[in-house]
């Protein structure tokens, strides 16, 4: 055991609530002692669930252990706490790259570059991925069967791991599920799809932007003395969005182009919210 690890271990033993777990966990990880690193990091994360550093450390350890799904979740948590965290953006970009989703990898690296323009590794990684993207066929490659299961290519599984079934929340609607998203409070997609001809499927990306929206809307109306919120309509030059909360823990997004009047989009959203509530009750 090196002197540094010994000293950090003593410090943590004396004061279990110290932030020394971050340095110790990283030192153990770099030495390849991943089990020990994970125990230290998890202990620290339990004490400091709101510390992005802790989630970032756990993500690096899980990535080294080959648990890519766990690493993705941990880096996502780090980003939720610190949306500009470069290391988490790079980590998730790496996972997407491993899974063959080059578009998502580039997007995350571009965000990392904005956050930390001095990090020279980012432009190098971007150049490499863009070069591969130009050479490869459009869209993400199917993952190599010999690699570990690539959860980042399905960061939100079509069959959610919360125990819900395979049926779409909007399966009963005549409009189908396109242009509808059901998102949980962590910004993860529960169902529905959102695609454009230019960008392809972007439901997961949009879902991530909706994390915490319900809480923020509730806060605004509460503090301004307007009571509970029930929907948000957004008009843009390219389309219209309606957001509502089918349950306290979910947000529904309905998107349509400008050809449909906003009030009609609102009615669609209400029908979709009823369908989503029924589906959630059934799947709970």
């Amino acid at each position, binding site marked *: 055991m090196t002197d540094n690890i010994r000293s950090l271990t003593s410090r943590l033993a004396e004061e279990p609530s110290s932030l020394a777990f971050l340095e110790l966990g990283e030192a153990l990880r770099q030495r390849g002692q991943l089990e020990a690193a994970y125990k230290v990091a998890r202990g620290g994360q339990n004490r400091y669930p709101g510390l992005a550093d802790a989630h970032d450390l756990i993500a690096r350890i899980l990535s080294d252990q080959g648990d890519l799904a766990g690493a993705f979740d941990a880096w996502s948590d780090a980003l939720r706490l610190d949306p500009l965290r470069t290391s988490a953006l790079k980590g998730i970009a790496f996972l997407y790259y491993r899974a063959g989703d080059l578009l998502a990898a580039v997007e995350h690296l571009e965000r990392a570059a904005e956050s930390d323009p001095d990090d020279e590794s980012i432009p190098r990684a971007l150049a490499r991925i863009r070069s591969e993207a130009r050479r490869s066929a459009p869209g993400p490659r199917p993952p190599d069967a010999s690699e570990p299961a690539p959860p980042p290519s399905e960061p939100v599984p079509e069959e959610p791991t919360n125990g819900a079934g395979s049926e779409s929340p909007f399966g009963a609607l005549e409009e189908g599920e396109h242009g509808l998203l059901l998102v949980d409070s962590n910004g993860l997609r529960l169902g529905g799809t959102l695609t454009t001809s230019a960008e392809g499927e*972007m439901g997961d*990306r949009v879902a991530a932007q909706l994390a915490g929206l319900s809480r923020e*809307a509730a806060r*605004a109306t509460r503090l*301004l003395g*307007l009571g*509970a919120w*029930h929907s*948000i309509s957004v008009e843009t*030059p390219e389309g219209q969005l309606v957001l509502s909360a089918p349950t306290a823990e979910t947000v529904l997004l309905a998107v349509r182009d400008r050809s449909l009047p906003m009030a009609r989009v609102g009615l669609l959203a209400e029908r979709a919210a009823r369908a989503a509530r029924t589906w959630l009750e059934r799947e709970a």
Partner: protein
Amino acid sequence: MSAAQTALDRVTRVPGVRGAIILSASDGLVVAEQLMDGIDGRAAAALAGSLVGRLTRAARSAGLGEPAFVQLRSEGGSILAAPGGQDVVLVAVAGPEANVGLARLEMLDAAGRFV
């Protein structure tokens, strides 16, 4: 009368509108306000600014560009927002009986003049 004051006057004359604010989008701070008693302009600017910012990111990520008009409906009324140019947003707080259609037209016209 300044352009800001003209905009606020027009919006607050709409029946049911309890107040209007012009805020700096990036800071969530009040630039100008015209509010009835009981409405906290500073809170409205900060909260509406933050919400509009979040919705702008969501709209952009959906490939729909920048929001032109936002309505947050609640039990007790609505918060209406019309982003203009130069990093400003025009926000109105409206009661449940407000003529939102008219408020929307006035706000879109006023926000268009902030470019």
